[in-house]
């Protein structure tokens, strides 16, 4: 009797164990199917094997993040294509640097002819010539220097910025990181002066306030 009861109990436990395992498998499959459904509906490039391994192996969860890379890659390709197409169709920003450099050189030339070169300090120069110091300090270069009788470079009367040698480089003319320059020579009271003005100002995009 006792032997029979023991056998029945063992059999029940076995059936219970099998049914629990079946439940667990059903539950797992449901989760996997849910994931496949979501990913397939939205992006369509998920893979069942990978998801299964995620459920099976915790270490595999890291692989889930890999889905992000193809997604970002596609976005990058599409976005890059649209940007490149628009850029090629409409062209890049117009280059205003040479015009601005010429305007600045003309302005300084007129100022020197009218008022001479005897300004007390740099601020005096800006005031005398009606130029804005803050603007010129951003992306502009300017030098007013005396030219000696033997055509060598003499004393600098005013210097803003540096690297004026770049103005004479032929190779950098198409390089947007170098300023475009304009040169003038002017005679004042029997002395000869050279003006070298450069501009490297580009359009700025600003948010609309208010």
């Amino acid at each position, binding site marked *: 009797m006792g032997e029979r009861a023991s056998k029945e109990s063992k059999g029940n436990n076995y059936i219970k164990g099998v049914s629990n395992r079946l439940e667990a498998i059903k*539950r797992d499959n*449901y*989760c996997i199917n*849910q*994931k496949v459904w*979501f*990913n397939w509906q*939205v*992006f369509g490039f998920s893979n069942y094997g990978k998801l299964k391994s995620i*459920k099976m192996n915790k270490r595999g969860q890291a692989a*889930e993040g890999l*889905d*992000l890379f193809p*997604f*970002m890659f596609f*976005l990058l390709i*599409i*976005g890059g294509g*649209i*940007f490149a197409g*628009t850029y090629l169709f*409409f*062209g890049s*920003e*117009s280059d*205003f640097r040479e*015009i*601005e450099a010429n*305007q*600045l050189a*003309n*302005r300084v030339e007129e100022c020197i002819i009218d008022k001479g070169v005897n300004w007390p300090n740099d601020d005096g120069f*800006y*005031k005398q010539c*009606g*130029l*804005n110091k*803050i*603007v*010129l300090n*951003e992306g*502009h270069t300017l030098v007013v220097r005396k030219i000696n009788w033997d055509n060598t470079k003499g004393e600098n009367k005013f210097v803003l910025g540096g690297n004026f040698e770049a103005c004479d480089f032929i190779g950098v003319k198409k390089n947007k990181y170098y300023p475009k320059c304009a040169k003038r020579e002017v005679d004042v009271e029997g002395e000869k002066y050279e003006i070298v003005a450069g501009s490297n*100002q580009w*359009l*700025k*995009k*600003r*948010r*609309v306030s208010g």
Partner: protein
Amino acid sequence: MNNKANADVAMNTIVYLVLLMLFLFGIWAFINNQKEGAGIWEDYYTKEIVKLINSAKVGEEVVLDVHRATEIAKGNGVEFGNIFSFSHENKEACVKIGLGMKSCFQYFNNVIIVEPRIEYGLEDKPINKLLFKIGEVKNG
């Protein structure tokens, strides 16, 4: 267990959707800004205005044909009062005829822009003009 898995799935989906939305918004903003070549015309008008200001003298009045700019701005739903703006602090002339940001360029002439306004064209002369005066900076 089930709830946790569902939450993970939902979280993943939300992350992807947010990224997708950001991307689409960026593309939309970029293309909208280029509508009717607004970006190019902004560039053109900004630099033309700055060229005029740089060569102008105090007391002069500047008149500029801006009809094309007003047409594009109208097409893009930009109010006429917002098309041209001048910043005395930054010495900038700004133009906005497309959606999104405005294009600005600095002028080195130490002047201020007085009474900028758009004069609308009449039937016999249907050209919209931008008018402004060149004023003197009071302090310095």
